[in-house]
């Protein structure tokens, strides 16, 4: 008989996925306690990932063979600093977003569907955590589809407030499925060449082939994966599904998905480009540097300009999200320590800022009923805490000193200069200028206009909505002042991805 606590500690990596999976299925059975149940599940998952993170931070990394099958036969979970960090971000945001979801969901979704909502919600989190923790390429595809399918359903649940949630969800479903199919094809071609699905083993097999860049099968695999991943992480110009999906989804869903789903897409790109193909193949032998940098830079500018023209604050932030993905992609495409670290730091910083801002807009929708610029007018007087959160988040998007956005842009600009790309450094700064303009539109409406319509009668949102929002925005400011934890972790993780090891 094995002691219970030993059973837990020995199977930590499996529990991170199994707990929300079973929890999600059981959420349909717990009646009106679905929210409490989801909070407990996501809270425990957060504690589990924290334990994993501290274990990995001290030691060399962890390996876990699922079902005790040797790793080339079965599925292996492999945890290093990179995915432990992403796991911590995803589970932390999921926990905070679940607390926030209670009132927002009661307001926006009919009561008879709450159980299904939380069930699908937990399954989406399962998929996102699973993609991050697994070391098996096909497992990535399956979990990707689990998270994508549940997110399509979550977005479609916004239909009671605006029927356009349905068309947005279907558009995302079609493009998302094509993207995932491309990833599946890429994995298939890799399987043909290497005969394995284990990521580390794939890398070893590819390294053993001296003429890998001449092998057409590998080139096809690389092309399919690059396009599929770009679709999934909404890299310009493959971002067209994103703005409407974020705008019409229920508030809690937008906050959670915006903060985690595209970030996990970026993590997949890290794994495929750096861990499987390796630095040399991806960035020395292939022109991926140029393709990714051009898409990212053009995306930063065009989505910034589009964001300025929006009259709906949620859509404005959605376009801004595509631009931020541009920063993240530009960072890792530079493939130097500062760039990759900036990219990783920005994954966390943007998740905290944008998650918090979408939550604040959800609070506005809760009190005022909409998120148009008109609804924001005079908000500074009526809902000071919510307006303060939006303002602090906007400062972060601009990259104002003392916010987390400043830290990531600092590293990204350093990375661009180290890579000798003056034009990219200029684009990053120009993108901040565009962020000033679109953020100012919101700030001007909130503080320099008189409230009208429903906003005039609005009072501050309930604490169940404001506190989670302030928690996320607070985190983004705390890690802007004291960046030792995020930047230190990111630099270490970046060094492990690049040749030359720890610097």
């Amino acid at each position: 008989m094995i002691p219970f606590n030993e059973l837990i500690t020995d199977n930590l990596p499996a529990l991170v996925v199994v707990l929300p999976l079973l929890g999600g299925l059981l959420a349909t059975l717990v009646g009106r306690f679905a929210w409490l149940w989801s909070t407990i599940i996501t809270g425990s998952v957060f504690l589990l990932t924290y334990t994993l993170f501290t274990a990995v931070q001290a030691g060399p990394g962890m390996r876990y063979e699922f079902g005790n099958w040797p790793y080339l036969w079965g599925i292996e979970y492999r945890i290093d600093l990179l995915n432990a960090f992403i796991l911590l971000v995803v589970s932390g945001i999921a926990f905070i977003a679940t607390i926030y979801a209670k009132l927002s969901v009661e307001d926006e979704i009919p009561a008879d569907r709450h159980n299904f909502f939380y069930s699908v919600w937990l399954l989406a989190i399962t998929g996102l955590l699973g993609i991050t923790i697994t070391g098996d390429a096909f497992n990535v595809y399956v979990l990707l589809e689990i998270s994508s399918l549940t997110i399509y359903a979550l977005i479609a649940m916004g239909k009671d407030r605006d029927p356009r949630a349905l068309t947005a969800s279907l558009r995302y479903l079609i493009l998302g499925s094509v993207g995932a199919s491309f990833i599946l094809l890429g994995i298939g071609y890799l399987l043909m060449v290497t005969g394995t699905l284990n990521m580390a083993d794939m890398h070893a097999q590819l390294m053993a082939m001296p003429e890998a860049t001449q092998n057409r099968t590998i080139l096809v695999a690389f092309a399919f994966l690059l396009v599929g991943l770009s679709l999934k992480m909404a890299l310009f110009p493959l971002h067209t599904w994103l703005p409407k999906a974020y705008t019409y989804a229920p508030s809690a869903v937008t906050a959670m998905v915006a903060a985690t789903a595209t970030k996990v897409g970026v993590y997949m790109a890290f794994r495929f480009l750096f861990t499987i193909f390796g630095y040399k193949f991806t960035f020395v032998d292939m022109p991926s540097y140029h393709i990714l940098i051009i898409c990212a830079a053009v995306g930063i500018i065009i989505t910034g300009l589009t964001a300025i023209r929006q009259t709906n604050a949620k859509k404005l932030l959605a376009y801004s999200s595509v631009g931020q993905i541009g920063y993240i992609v530009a960072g890792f495409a530079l493939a130097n320590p500062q760039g990759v670290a900036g990219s990783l730091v920005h994954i966390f910083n943007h998740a905290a800022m944008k998650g918090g801002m979408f939550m604040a807009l959800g609070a506005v929708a809760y009190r005022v009923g909409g998120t148009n610029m008109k609804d924001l007018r005079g908000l500074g007087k009526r809902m000071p805490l919510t307006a303060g959160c939006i303002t602090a988040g906007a400062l972060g998007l601009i990259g104002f000193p003392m916010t987390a956005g400043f830290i990531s842009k600092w590293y990204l600009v350093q990375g661009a200069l180290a890579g000798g790309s003056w034009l990219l450094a200029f684009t990053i700064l120009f993108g901040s200028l565009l962020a000033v303009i679109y953020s100012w539109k919101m700030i001007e409406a909130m503080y320099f206009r008189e409230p009208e319509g429903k906003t005039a009668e609005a009072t501050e949102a309930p604490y169940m909505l404001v506190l989670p929002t302030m928690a996320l925005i607070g985190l983004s400011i705390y890690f802007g002042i004291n960046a030792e934890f995020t930047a230190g972790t990111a630099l270490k993780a970046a060094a492990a991805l690049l040749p030359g090891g720890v610097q």
Partner: protein
Amino acid sequence: MSDVLEIYNYWIYIVLMMVGFYGVMAKRNLIKQAIALGLFQTGIFLFYISMAVVDGGTAPIWMADGATKVPNPLAVPAAFDNPLPHVLMLTAIVVGVSILAVALAIIINIRRAFGTIEYDELTKIEREMEAREAREAAQ
């Protein structure tokens, strides 16, 4: 020439996938798009199953001797096809069915909310909604 014809199942996979991809991008009816998406994925199943074939291989089943029920080494064929891609495709088929189910559920709801499943008409309705919102915002 014979090399090209021998791998005809790969040609079928590419044609099937391209027909599906064309349908997803070009068809204006949502149901047709969903069908095309299914076709696109079926092409990928065929690709995986084709890659599993080993020259002279048979189905990967360990044949027991009929009378004694003891594995007979002589009855074991020289080569087995690779069963791994088959197993992967079982999972992918389930995923494909789920995608189709979610897509059809959303399309039913679109029909209820908008009264049409034609892409062009939906775009027109959405444009009108957006124009109305823009007018309200300008006030």
